[in-house]
């Protein structure tokens, strides 16, 4: 079983529906990949920061230490480039498929 750690910002003023995006990811990823919210014994290859707005206030050093690589969703931006909100989960999967991360987690 491979894991991707998902961490959320505090959600004070989100411009996207973060939990809906994560649900879309769960449905699109293969069953041997689990999405977790807590630290795992083995540092995951990939983490996803789900921030409700472009400030992406979660993107801090102590969070980055929880995984080797990160995809940062900040409102309607994914890794600092604008994405239509209803395309965010697709864009995340696309980034994973582009092979930036361990091939074992490719869907």
């Amino acid at each position: 079983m491979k894991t991707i750690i998902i961490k959320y910002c505090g959600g004070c003023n989100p411009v996207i529906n973060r939990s809906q995006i994560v649900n879309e990811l769960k449905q699109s990823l293969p069953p041997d990949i689990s999405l977790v919210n807590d630290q795992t014994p083995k540092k995951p290859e990939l983490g996803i920061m789900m921030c409700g707005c472009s400030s992406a206030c979660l993107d801090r050093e102590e969070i980055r230490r929880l995984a080797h690589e990160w995809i940062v969703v900040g409102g309607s931006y994914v890794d600092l480039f604008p994405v239509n909100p209803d395309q965010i989960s697709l864009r995340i999967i696309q980034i994973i498929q582009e092979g930036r991360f361990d091939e074992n987690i490719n869907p």
Partner: protein
Amino acid sequence: MALKTAQEYIDSLRNRKLDIYMLGKKVDNFVDHPIIRPSINAMAMTYKLAEEPEYEDLMTVTSNLTGEKINRFTHLHQSTTDLINKVKMQRLLGQKTGCCFQRCVGMDAFNAVFSTTFEMDAKHGTDYHERFKKFLIYVQQNDLVVDGCMTDARGDRSKSPGQQPDPDAYLHVVEKREDGIVVRGCKLHQTGMINSHEILVMPNNALKEDEQEWAVCFAVPTDAPGMLYVYGRQSCDTRKLEDNKIDVGNINFGGQEVMTIFNNVFVPWERVFMNGETDFSTTLVERFAGYHRQSYGGCKVGTGDTLIGAVKAITDYNGASKASHVKDKIVEMCHLNETLFACGIACSAAGRKTAAGNYLIDLLLANICKQNVTRFPYEIARIAQDLAGGLLVTQPSAQDYDNPEIGPLVKKYTQAADDSEKRQRMLRYIENLTMGCGAVGYLTESMHGAGSPQAQRIMISRLIDLQHRKDLAEKLCGIQENHDIDWK
């Protein structure tokens, strides 16, 4: 070191041959012209404070491009702290000059063009970003003033650039050559233009796919062949031509707005940062406008500080400062002014990193900031006029105060709780900011600069998520199920 002194800055303007017209005549020596010089003094203050150890923490920063110490006005913001410090710097300069010090538009343009060119290159495979970096390094290393140049003449407001009977209504490319482009058009209201060394031109607005000739961003020196300048009039501007400066109000400083005509100006390719990419015109305009709307949460606050100080002073001189309503009205002025500052700080603190690496303000909060700026300075000015009293607009001229025959009587009858010259000067300063030359910057620029009020309201309506708010309300009153409650 990449920092000029104030004197070096002023001397650097003397070498420039600019075609400037004012009051129907060509201006030969603009640097020493009494109507223009106060605006140069205000700009020079951006250099002077950078020389001072007392202010260097705000005024200077290490360049991410060269590693050298540079003036913050030429900096690419590297963090939200940088964005906050920008606003604080602007407040400081507003306090020191009591007017528009003109250098912000360039800084705001740098940051907008830097991130937009990066994203443009990523999509279109162009090389604008590297070109722009070279230009900006040149600006930083020579500590130059750059006019960020956006607002076109715009002709018939109901028509887009491509529909205008005169295509020059919006600045556009009229010729493409092997070595560059030729542009023609006019940019209005250009703040500090002739006090600048370079011009960074951006498109005015969103463009349609077939409006490529108007999707142009470039830099030229202010003394490029074909550049023409017509100096904007300001209320009471000819008072600056009088020997006694008291009636000017702000003795040494003032703003500057210039009609800027590009009469077939050549731009070499290395200075072209957008050429036909209509799909990025909106991004560039929104980012520049956003940064500039943030700016007003600093500069207008600093000027507001001086107006509040002037009102405190005049009420002291009048003997009215102990009245409870006077104290309360001054508190209201402070509340309004600090609210603007809070907005400037907030949109900075909530800023974000761009793909290019520099930081962008929170666009929604920056538009909220500017929307308040279109209103609060007017209310602050109204209270200032209330507390100043009617002599604000009926006071005799400085020449009458100086006249050996009538002067002693003028002084006798304008004497209140303090020296009559203090009242004379302070009333002129309040007049300057609320209806004279200074009102151009403090009031009407607050209304229209960085976009008129409706422009912010359009952005607010686009950026605010009303469905999210509707969902919140529907959950609270039981129309939607509230999944947050999982306890008994």
